[in-house]
């Protein structure tokens, strides 16, 4: 078997059943889309709260991430298909650019220190 073919076999082994995976991903996407399509309603109902969405429904809400994850576990809902999100009443501005290795910038791992002259 060529190395390319054996690599593909290895990847397929890691993947498991592709049809099942596709189905699971589809359900997860449906839950994620709820965050986009119903966001205004979610802000009204759960301002500054954590929520967990499974399929089309908000199945848990609370003030802390831990509380919501505990509720998800209690309901025996698969966490891998549940999307957890903090519903911010006032949108934060986030700048996420330039996430790179510190070494690439020539910055010491423990950060920069400015020496007084």
């Amino acid at each position, binding site marked *: 078997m060529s190395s390319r073919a054996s690599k593909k076999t290895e990847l397929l082994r890691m993947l498991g059943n592709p049809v099942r995976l596709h189905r699971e991903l*589809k359900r997860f996407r449906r839950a994620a889309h709820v965050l986009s399509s119903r966001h205004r309603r979610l802000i009204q109902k759960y301002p500054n709260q954590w929520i967990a969405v499974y399929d089309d429904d908000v199945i848990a809400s609370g003030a802390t991430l831990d509380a919501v994850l505990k509720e998800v576990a209690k309901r025996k809902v698969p*966490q891998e298909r549940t999307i957890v999100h903090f519903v911010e009443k006032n949108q934060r501005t986030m700048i996420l*650019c330039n996430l790179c290795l510190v070494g690439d910038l020539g910055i010491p791992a423990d950060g920069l220190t400015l020496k007084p002259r």
Partner: protein
Amino acid sequence: MFSGRFGDTSGRPYIEAQVILPRLKISSGVSFIVDTGADQTVLMPLDAVRLGIDYRKLRRGQNLFGVGGSCKSYRESALIVFSENNRRLFLYEIEVGIIEKRREFMRTRSLLGRDILDRLRMDYNASKRIITFKAISSDATIRLPTRPSS
């Protein structure tokens, strides 16, 4: 072709993928922010906690640097899978970064970086709220069985 979504009121671009961490026996959906400024794909602690990743089992990676400063990361071999309608799965084998658990990162979504984005073609139309991707290359492509027509 597979599509992403524009998020809530922020308008951030997202895409959902299945993340498989074979060593940890974890397979889960993750919603990523599409971030062309990120050199590598990272799982933020919100997803790491939800996926049940035990940080004690992780291998220490390099420090990562972003606008907010530097942070510790861990590295793990991962398979990132996208699904194209009901037709194909695209697999990408990468070393994913897992960001340390810190309070200020807990509300931030995981980032899909250029280690994967460089292998996709992205059509980004924010005014129409359409974001689509076409795979230029992948480590493996799996054709899904078509349903027999009734």
